[in-house]
């Protein structure tokens, strides 16, 4: 079976319709038209095929967010492979693990990472072919490396591969409770059904200007990149470091005339508090979408009062389904409201139900775990069949429901779902999934650490506060600075605990397990 459309067919359609329109803007580094983006990604497709990439393969992306990176996504898809983006700021050992774990056939990467990646791979196995860019920005470095390769041996012209519905489009790695990240496998049908749903609900137009705030290894980027380019709109890339500066973001919304904004709530909270939104002309903004964690109502109220015109949508969904429920909230946010807004109704291309511990559907008003089925639900976790099987609830008729692990309540029959919390030890921090067990596994590697337990607690300003409790093997204790630096070498920065507390020993329950409830009282 072939899908009616694929992500790269959507780009090709826009190239045919709007060749001279600007597809992607990268502040300070230039812009690229649809025709140019089409050509650049075609050339990368041909080069990838020349180095041995075949339909069904995976290709790694180790690049900062840039025009080069967007062209790379489409070059990989056109070759029939799945793209595997990693966080260029994450520890190299983690990124090398990801590349090795899903056996990438090639990596498109910035030269600055080459030496250390090669070192990391030395222990893992053979290094795949690398396409080495001299930096990334504006599309020039990718064009240059393709020119240089063609000068040596021109790549044969190939055609775009038409994927089948269940062929993988991308693999996104998320925090894994065992200490290793796990790869969420998403197919073209998964991606296209989500992109098409966005088309229905948000009605993007060719004159829209989308923000690209989320990094490319984060599932929010699927909406930014692929919905924008399907509709011939303009994608405005926001570099990650600048994306954390609220004043700069308000200025960018005004100057770039952003019409569709999508991000985790944290930067919107900061913009509401420090962004001077009233001092900027944000009149082009027609949609504000947020997802990834609960938006503190206090800051949402401020945001809506400063920007009353746009429509606001609270989107919810794990990487495994992308957005699976949505709720439109209509400003203003009442002064008396303190409860977060609902996560809303299940998206039209999916179905949902909330079940109890016996997998029976719960009544409205009762708590249950949200389960989702439909065209948007992932194929599984890369090379983890048991973990995949555990994450699905299979009905008698064979329907596979993804267990989100999120506890929800349905307000009333046909009403909205309300988010209550997690079933397990995962928390969301700045939109990222953090498995507390992965932090513990990292800290256990410290030579002085005998025991470690990590707890998370709600924080009115930051959303969540993470505390690590440690006990020492001897008399020595590592300093706060040392512990933070130790973590920085082993995990992404958003996982590093806010606080570290040394105890003589960790409190235990009667069954001799770590007493997390008692630790929460100490945090």
């Amino acid at each position, binding site marked *: 079976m072939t899908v009616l459309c694929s992500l790269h067919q959507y780009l090709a359609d826009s190239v045919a319709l709007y060749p001279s329109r600007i597809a992607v803007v990268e502040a300070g580094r230039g812009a690229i038209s649809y025709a140019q983006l089409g050509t650049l990604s075609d050339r990368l497709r041909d080069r990838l095929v020349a180095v041995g990439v075949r339909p069904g393969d995976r290709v790694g992306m180790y690049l900062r967010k840039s025009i080069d990176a967007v062209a790379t996504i489409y070059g990989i898809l056109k070759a029939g492979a799945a793209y595997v983006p990693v966080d260029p700021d994450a520890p190299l050992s983690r990124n090398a693990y990801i590349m090795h774990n899903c056996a990438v056939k090639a990596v498109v990467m910035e030269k600055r990472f080459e030496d250390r990646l090669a070192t990391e791979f030395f222990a893992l196995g053979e290094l795949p072919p690398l396409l080495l860019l001299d930096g990334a920005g504006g599309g020039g470095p990718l064009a240059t490396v393709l020119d240089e390769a063609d000068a040596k041996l021109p790549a044969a012209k190939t055609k775009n591969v038409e994927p089948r519905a269940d062929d993988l489009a991308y693999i996104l790695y998320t925090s894994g409770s065992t200490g290793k990240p796990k790869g969420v496998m998403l197919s073209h049908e998964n991606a296209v059904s989500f992109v098409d749903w966005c088309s229905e609900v948000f009605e993007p137009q060719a004159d829209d200007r989308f923000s690209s705030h989320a990094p490319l290894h984060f599932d929010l980027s699927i909406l930014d990149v692929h919905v924008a380019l399907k509709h011939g709109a303009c994608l405005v890339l926001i570099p990650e*470091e*600048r994306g*954390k*500066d*609220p*004043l*700069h973001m308000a*200025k960018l919304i005004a100057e770039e005339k952003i019409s569709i904004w999508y991000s985790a709530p*944290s930067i919107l909270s*900061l913009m509401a508090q*420090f962004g001077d939104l009233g001092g900027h002309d944000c009149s082009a903004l027609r949609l504000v979408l947020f997802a990834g964690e609960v938006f503190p109502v206090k800051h949402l109220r401020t945001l809506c009062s400063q920007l009353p015109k746009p429509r606001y949508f609270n989107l919810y969904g794990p990487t495994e389904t992308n957005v699976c429920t949505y709720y439109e909230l209509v400003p203003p946010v009442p002064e008396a409201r303190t409860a977060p807004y609902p996560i809303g109704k299940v998206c039209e291309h999916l179905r949902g139900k909330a079940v109890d511990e016996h997998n029976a559907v719960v009544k409205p008003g009762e708590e249950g775990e949200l389960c989702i089925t439909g065209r948007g639900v992932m194929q599984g976790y890369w090379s983890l069949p048991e973990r995949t099987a555990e994450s699905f609830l299979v009905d008698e008729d064979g329907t596979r429901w993804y267990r989100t692990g999120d506890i929800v309540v349905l307000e009333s029959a046909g009403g909205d779902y309300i988010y209550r919390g997690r079933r397990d030890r995962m928390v969301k921090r*700045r939109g990222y999934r953090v498995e507390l067990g992965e932090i513990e596994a990292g800290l256990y590697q410290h030579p002085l650490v005998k025991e470690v337990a990590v707890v998370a607690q709600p924080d009115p300003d*930051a959303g969540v506060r993470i505390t690590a409790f440690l006990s020492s093997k001897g008399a020595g204790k590592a*300093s*706060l*600075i*040392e512990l*933070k*630096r130790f*973590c*920085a070498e082993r995990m992404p*920065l*958003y996982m*590093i605990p806010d606080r570290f507390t040394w105890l003589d020993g960790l409190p235990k329950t009667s069954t001799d397990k770590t007493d997390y409830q008692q630790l929460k009282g100490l945090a």
Partner: protein
Amino acid sequence: MDMSMDFGTAVKNYILEEFLPGENPDDLTEDLPLISGGILDSIATLRMVLHFEEQYGIVLEAHEADKEHLDTIRSIASLLASKVR
């Protein structure tokens, strides 16, 4: 007078008070990587920038508020010194 020395002390004291309570001041050296070393996360960095902008009545450009300019006490101090005239 070497102005950046004073800024260095101010930055060090601020980081110790706000983000490293109880830490031995001697461990917080001038060249310790703060952002890449996981000492300051993005929110902490932002709070620090806002604090010094207010204290010294300066404005950092967006391109200055990045890891390159803010990763060590030494680089923060010299950035502040270049802004305060």
